[in-house]
């Protein structure tokens, strides 16, 4: 039997190598009169041809023929097991076009046929204006059953909405018609199970038509379908991964909830122009993982996502007659929550019915409160932990194998060169593995921590001083750094290298990287004196290295550069960073997180030395090359790019990036970035000039900071809250917040630096505005004393001190000279290196000093001069900060109507 079948296979296989038109002859010859063999060979070949569906020139015998009353005109589509033709009935005075569906030839197996007949039965019971109507049915001459449906000459709903340029609300309204049709079908106990834009057409009349109940299922209890259970084990029915609910992949019983989910994906696509998650639909297993595990992106983030084969963000916004800002304000909040609920991974968390989903959408349209409540952070975090536990476990496994397996094998010292190479690849593998799963989950952290610990112990069995031991140490130190385990990392480094390492190690790239990582660990714990001692040895070694094309060197140079910058040594740091990035560009693709990280760090250093233009180009290029596969790195790059945009006064476009960073951080919490993000986003919200938004962002910043560490709230947030209170004329409240910012920077007896002095100056002005002249003067004196006693650079604080003095003294005759001096001091400060955050404040304060000047003139009764002052300042302030900035609006107010309508130093709100 099997020998015979092997003979069949042999002939079939050989026949495949013969040109198709010579095959028949070839087979006859090979079968040598064995008719049974020949029949089986031919049958098998036919199966093959069907399987890959490649019979060029094959004639479709149906076309031109008749099925029932219809003439078959052309084939218009082909699905998994079905094929659709356009048919025409020509009557005496009318022509009716229908879509005729049949089972594909070669697929008329019993189960397919049963399913087909079921679809026909299901259609027969449905009658709704938004459902394509069943018109007729019968059996074709070759025995295949067929049925004819109303022919819908329309476009997929997504395409139609884009072509009509419907805005988001119009889209939601149209979508409610789709819901009505699906709800009707559910009422008839039919679930569709394959809802997708291609099955939801909009005709020329603008009416929605729902098609293709091909894989529909009758709900329990409908009786007449017991004969053909569809979800029999093993028969995977057709599935459109992009729109299928998670439970549809597992063949679990699917019901109404699956249709709710698919509808939600369609709505999501209508709103955002893209899918809730990037998906590889060709790889079903990968698609399943994505659908089951990846949370939907927020619509705000999705509109910014660019994908091959989809229109870019601007085009999509235009198709929705929207701008980035308008879009954001429409979709965020309730609409996003509704989508979130309908797209829940667990069926029971979704809307219980399509009706409930539609009702919430109607409420949203009407501006009424919706029923969907947001997914809590705790829930998301829980999901995240659950999702990543597997990969964390894998990381443990891989690291264990690295430390035990490879180390043991290599230690045998019977190693070929190839082996050593692959060990390095493996190590990168493991490092990356752990980076990807750098979970902050207690449970997993302990196991990884333990493993790091035992890694250190195993290290000691390797020959002291061997390259292998150094290599393993390097891996382990990097892991400690990535996992925020600085203290253990330092302990390990100390045990291996001592507190005063052998600096000769730095001659090799690996050794250099080990020592740099050691210094980096020290830096992480604020041990800057030791860090600087390391830098003194390592920076010259890095510069003298002959191995500058290696990744290890580039890694070291990056962090040596950053640490030098932090130590105030920009002249050393910047060239190292430049070279590191140049090396990474040669070694790594643009989306590599390590390269991205180095580029952004270089941009930071460039900004500090006032090369903002270049820094901006670099961050934008980095952002454009970024990859969704590394969400944390992406969040970091976005945050940095946002700051660079803000530096150029583009607060709106920076805001988009901040919003998207927030979405990323909500889904991939990263303690290292969260506090930084909260403070920088709040600052941008202030500069945007929208009071309500600024309030909201500052308060959320406080919430986030408190969630991270209530004992350690960023002084920036207090400062910003003070600024906002000033804008609103709440001078006393502002003074209180400024005071907290001062306090945050002088706690623990630290010598007051620029942060403390700056906040102190603003507090003095706030007290002056609140009418407490004495306290204001005392404050100013204190700031003055701190400033003159300072050992560190004080940025533009001297300019602010001069300006504040003029405000406080009310010496009308000295005003112009004082502010001229302040302007000069500011201009001087602007030529010196300083961080992007201070540069943002310089931009703000350039306008503020003008404003103070004008206000002081008003207070002195010099109305005309005040107006002139404001008028002269406006063009520059607008160019720097835009039209809507509070300070610009205040200057505008004085220019238009110069009057002092209270003691308030500025009145930003109209």
């Amino acid at each position: 039997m099997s020998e015979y079948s092997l003979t069949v296979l042999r002939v079939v296989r050989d026949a495949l190598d013969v040109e198709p038109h010579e095959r028949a002859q070839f087979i006859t010859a090979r079968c040598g009169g064995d008719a049974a063999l020949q029949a089986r060979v031919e049958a098998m070949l036919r199966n093959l041809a069907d399987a890959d569906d490649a019979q060029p020139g094959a004639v479709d015998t149906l076309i031109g023929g008749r099925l029932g009353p219809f003439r078959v005109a052309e084939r218009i589509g082909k699905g998994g097991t079905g094929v659709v033709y356009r048919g025409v009935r020509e009557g005496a005075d009318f022509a009716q076009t229908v879509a005729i569906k049949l089972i594909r030839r070669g697929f008329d197996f019993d189960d397919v046929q049963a399913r087909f007949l079921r679809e026909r039965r299901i259609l027969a019971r449905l009658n709704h204006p938004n459902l394509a109507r069943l018109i007729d049915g019968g059996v074709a001459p070759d025995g295949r059953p067929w049925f004819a449906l109303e022919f819908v000459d329309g476009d997929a709903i997504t395409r139609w909405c884009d072509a009509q340029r419907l805005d988001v609300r119009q889209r939601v309204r149209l979508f409610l018609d789709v819901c009505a049709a699906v709800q009707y079908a559910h009422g008839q106990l039919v679930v569709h199970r394959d809802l997708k834009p291609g099955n939801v057409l909009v005709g020329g009349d603008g009416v929605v038509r729902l098609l293709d109940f091909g894989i529909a299922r009758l709900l329990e209890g409908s009786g007449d379908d017991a004969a053909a259970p569809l979800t029999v084990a093993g028969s995977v029915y057709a599935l459109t991964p992009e729109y299928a609910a998670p439970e549809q992949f597992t063949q679990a019983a699917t019901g109404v909830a699956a249709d709710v989910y698919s509808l939600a994906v369609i709505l999501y696509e209508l709103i955002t122009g893209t899918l809730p998650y990037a998906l590889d639909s060709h790889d079903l297993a990968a698609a399943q993982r994505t659908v089951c595990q990846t949370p939907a992106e927020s619509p705000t983030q999705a509109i910014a996502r660019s994908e091959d084969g989809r229109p870019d963000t601007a085009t999509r916004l235009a198709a929705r007659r929207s701008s980035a800002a308008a879009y954001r304000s429409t979709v965020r909040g309730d609409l996003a929550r509704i989508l979130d609920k309908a797209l829940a991974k667990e069926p029971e968390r979704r809307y219980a019915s399509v009706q409930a989903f539609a009702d919430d959408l109607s409420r949203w349209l009407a501006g009424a409160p919706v029923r969907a409540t947001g997914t809590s952070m705790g829930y998301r975090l829980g999901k995240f932990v659950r999702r990543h536990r597997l990969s964390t476990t894998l990381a443990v496994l891989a690291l264990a194998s690295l430390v035990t397996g490879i180390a043991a094998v290599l230690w045998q010292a019977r190693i070929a060169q190839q082996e050593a190479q692959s060990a390095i690849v493996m190590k990168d593998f493991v490092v990356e593995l752990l980076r990807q799963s750098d979970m902050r989950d207690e449970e997993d952290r302990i196991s990884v921590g333990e493993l790091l610990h035992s890694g250190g112990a195993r290290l000691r069995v390797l020959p002291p001083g061997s390259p292998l031991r150094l290599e393993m140490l390097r891996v382990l130190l990097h892991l400690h750094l990535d996992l925020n385990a600085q203290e253990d990392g330092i302990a390990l480094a100390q045990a291996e290298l001592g507190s005063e390492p052998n600096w000769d190690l730095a001659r090799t790239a690996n050794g250099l990287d080990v020592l740099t990582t050691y210094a980096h660990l020290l830096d992480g714990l604020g041990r800057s004196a030791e860090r600087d001692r390391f830098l003194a040895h390592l920076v010259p070694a890095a510069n003298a290295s002959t191995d500058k094309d290696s990744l290890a060197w580039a890694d070291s140079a990056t962090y040596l550069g950053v640490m030098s910058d932090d130590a105030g040594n920009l002249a050393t740091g910047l060239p190292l960073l430049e070279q590191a990035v140049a090396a990474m560009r040669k070694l790594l693709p643009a989306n590599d997180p390590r390269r991205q990280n180095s580029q952004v760090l270089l941009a930071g250093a460039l900004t500090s030395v006032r090369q903002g233009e270049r820094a901006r180009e670099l961050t934008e290029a980095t952002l454009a090359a970024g990859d969704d596969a590394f969400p944390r790195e992406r969040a970091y790059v976005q945050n940095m790019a946002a700051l660079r945009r803000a530096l150029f006064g583009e607060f709106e476009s920076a805001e988009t990036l901040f919003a998207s960073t927030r979405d990323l951080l909500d889904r991939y919490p990263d303690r290292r970035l969260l506090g930084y993000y909260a403070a920088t986003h709040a600052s941008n919200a202030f500069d945007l000039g929208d009071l309500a938004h600024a309030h909201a962002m500052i308060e959320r910043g406080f919430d986030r900071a408190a969630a991270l560490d209530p004992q350690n709230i960023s002084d920036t947030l207090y400062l910003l809250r003070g600024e906002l209170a000033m804008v609103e004329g709440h001078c006393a409240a502002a003074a209180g917040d400024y005071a907290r910012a001062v306090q945050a920077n002088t706690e623990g007896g630290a010598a007051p630096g620029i942060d403390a002095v700056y906040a102190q100056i603003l507090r003095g002005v706030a007290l002056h505005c609140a009418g407490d002249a004495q306290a204001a003067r005392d404050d100013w004196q204190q700031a003055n004393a701190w400033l003159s006693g300072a050992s560190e650079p004080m940025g533009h604080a001297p300019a602010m001190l001069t300006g504040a003095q003029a405000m406080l003294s009310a010496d009308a005759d000295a005003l112009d000279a004082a502010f001229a001096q302040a302007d000069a001091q500011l201009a001087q400060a602007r030529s010196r290196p300083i961080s992007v955050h201070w540069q943002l404040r310089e931009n703000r304060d350039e306008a503020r000093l003008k404003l103070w000047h004008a206000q002081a003139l008003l207070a002195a009764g010099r109305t005309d001069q005040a107006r002139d002052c404001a008028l002269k300042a406006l063009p520059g302030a607008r160019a720097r900060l835009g039209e809507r900035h509070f300070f610009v609006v205040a200057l505008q107010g004085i220019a238009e109507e110069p009057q002092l309508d209270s003691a308030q130093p500025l009145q930003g709100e109209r």
Partner: protein
Amino acid sequence: MGSATEGSVTKWLERWRDGDPAALDRLLPLVYADLRRIAASVLRSTPGHATLQTTALVHEMLLRLLGRAPAEYASTTHLLNASARMMRQILVDRARNASRTKRGGEWRRADFAEVAELQIPDGTDLIMLDQALTELEAMDARMAKVVELRYFIGLEVPEVATMLDVAERTAQRDWIAAHEWLRQRLADT
């Protein structure tokens, strides 16, 4: 998949760390797909890599885990050939044991299909598949190899062609013919 799979990974992992060498054997199919995916994402940053190398990297790691020194494999081709053979062996042995002992909680093919992303059709009897492949090997070793590489390490046809150093068209014809033959052969018995 979900929690059951994760649970069993953790269980076998713990056993392995406790010194049970057999546990690794159980772990293998469970971690395979993830290793492959992670390896792909790692190697994406390595210039000039190919998918074959991803697979090779994972298999090298698996061989290490199984305590088989990879030094004996001279090339990627050699390594993958050996791996495919080994995966087949492991899975078939597993199926045999399962059918003999009928213990609860045995590894099931369904788990495997989901987790390992291999392309063995659903419901395939692995023991029969093994027999059929052995028969096929006797007649045409290359066709059997094509199936083995596709089924047991999940290579795509173009990758198989590269590995076997034949034209893609040839590998494709080998594949469709052998696949159809196996389908009939397994359905007949």
